[in-house]
């Protein structure tokens, strides 16, 4: 019996073919870009819309490895530091608060009666709509930006953690009671460790919106940060800076995702193995 290489549900691509398939869209994208850029630059060497790779490399050299005359810092790195600090603090806070609320709402019906409707209500508020309120109440410094990320991300984490608790079979809660476990022990020694892996997965999925809120906040009021820089140089149509910055943000996001995936499989090897023998 021979399996087809690419087409159909029975396809079994070989290892090298998998690599080719993986590279294909990237190669196509780069090729189309280079072609279009070349056409525009031959037409008008001063064109700024689709810079060549060497122009972008020059821009990266200026941004990352040349001291900025005005501030005396290396802009790419100071922007990265500022942005990472905001997104990490905001997401971490959201993860902690979301975990705690979700754990309690999911496990204790009394808390759920208050907590769940209120958090559902909060989660329906579009975070960007209250951005002006945040700037007015928390000032244009770091706090407002962190708060936007926090408010944008924690309702989803909290609701997902609640569902994760609800998915734990009720048998386990009864079982714990027959072992004489107290309610606090149940919450923090039985339920909490079991929803930690789900927290990691939820944070992974929330990072996309966290970046969105970060860039939005930085675009409106900041003096450094990756989003701030992109919106600043947009005024000069500096695509040779914007494109590398976007790639850099994508790379940072990818690394965070990769790290969380690694942590999940390293710390929680039993996760998603329920009922299966391997």
């Amino acid at each position, binding site marked *: 019996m021979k399996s087809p290489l690419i087409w159909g549900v029975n396809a079994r691509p070989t290892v090298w073919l998998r690599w080719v398939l993986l590279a294909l869209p990237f190669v196509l994208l780069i090729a189309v870009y280079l072609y279009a850029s070349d056409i525009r630059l031959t037409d008008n060497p001063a064109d700024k819309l689709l810079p060549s790779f060497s122009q972008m490399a020059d821009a990266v050299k200026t941004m990352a490895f040349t001291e900025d005359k005005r501030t005396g810092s290396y802009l790419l790195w100071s922007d990265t530091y500022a942005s990472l600090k905001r997104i990490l603090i905001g997401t971490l806070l959201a993860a902690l608060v979301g975990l705690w609320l979700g754990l309690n709402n999911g496990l204790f019906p009394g808390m759920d009666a208050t907590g769940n409707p209120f958090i559902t209500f909060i989660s329906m508020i579009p975070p960007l709509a209250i951005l002006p309120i945040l700037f007015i109440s928390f000032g244009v410094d770091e706090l407002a930006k962190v708060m936007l990320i926090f408010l944008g991300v924690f309702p989803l984490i909290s609701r997902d953690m609640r569902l994760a608790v609800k998915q734990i079979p009720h048998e386990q809660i009864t*079982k714990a*009671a*027959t*072992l*004489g476990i*107290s309610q606090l022990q149940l919450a923090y020694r039985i339920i909490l460790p079991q929803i930690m892996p789900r927290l990691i997965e939820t944070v992974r999925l929330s990072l996309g919106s966290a970046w969105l809120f970060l860039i939005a906040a930085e675009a409106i009021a900041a003096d450094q940060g990756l989003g701030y820089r992109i919106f600043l140089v947009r005024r000069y149509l500096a695509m040779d800076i914007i494109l590398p910055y976007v790639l850099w943000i994508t790379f940072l996001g990818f690394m965070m995702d990769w790290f969380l995936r690694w942590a999940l499989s390293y710390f929680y090897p*039993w996760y998603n193995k329920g*009922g*299966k*023998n391997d």
Partner: protein
Amino acid sequence: MTDDKQRYLEIHDVYKAYGSKVILDNIDLKVDKGEFCSLVGPSGCGKSTLLRLILGEESPTSGKLILDGETIGHPDVNRGVIFQRYSLFPHLSVMENVTLGLRLGGRTDAKSLSDKDIRDEAMVLLKKVRLDKHENKYPHQLSGGMQQRVAIAQALIMKPKILMMDEPFGALDPDTREDMQLSLLELWEEEQMTIFFITHDMEEAAFLGTRLLALSQYYTDDRGRNYENRGSKIAVDRKLPQVASPTNVKHSPEFRDLIEEIREQAFNPEYLQHAKEFNLSHPNAFVSLTQEEAGIKR
């Protein structure tokens, strides 16, 4: 009959209804210490509901449940339980699962035990269930039968007054299942436990245990044939041979006859026995039919 004598587990006139639908209809039961009761019944008869009542996960609509002189409340250390699945905590190793009840202080004497005492005690049990070589594995690394053996050790370490088992071998293949039945009988003889074992497999029920109970919704009584809202009653309550026998007893004619009889009395929707004619031959069996059920005119 020794009705007035206090028994270990007592169930008096218990009804359980969900909305207007009656599931358990005036259940009476007394169980002695050390008894191994198997409970069978057709699907939907309320076996698991009865287990949840004894466990304290739910409370009866009316009636009383008493264990060792105390009215039954929410689940606690007095009652151990083994479910068909999910009895183990997936984030803990075999050893951690078994020692959990002692480490978190559920057993009254556990506070005085050192870490080593606890491990030693768990090791003794793990040896009994033949899992001492697997103490550091996680549940997902064990087969279904091994997981259930860990669950047994995890429950036994608490020394519960009664061990409730809800189709514990239902998800196992036939060979493993037979093997588990034999180990359970051995453990029961060694540890002198009181066991309440629920299954839908009649062969398993008749093979295990000292007492066979069948719960059935297929019966009639003096409330009349057209009475709609009838819940399940205990339709069979009889003694089983006391000794753990080798599995080949399952092929003997007496064993087959017993199974046929119970199948007819409890599982056949066409065969409606009158509540007064149930086979309640066990010495501890007792029923108190209501006046309507027994046809006594007021």
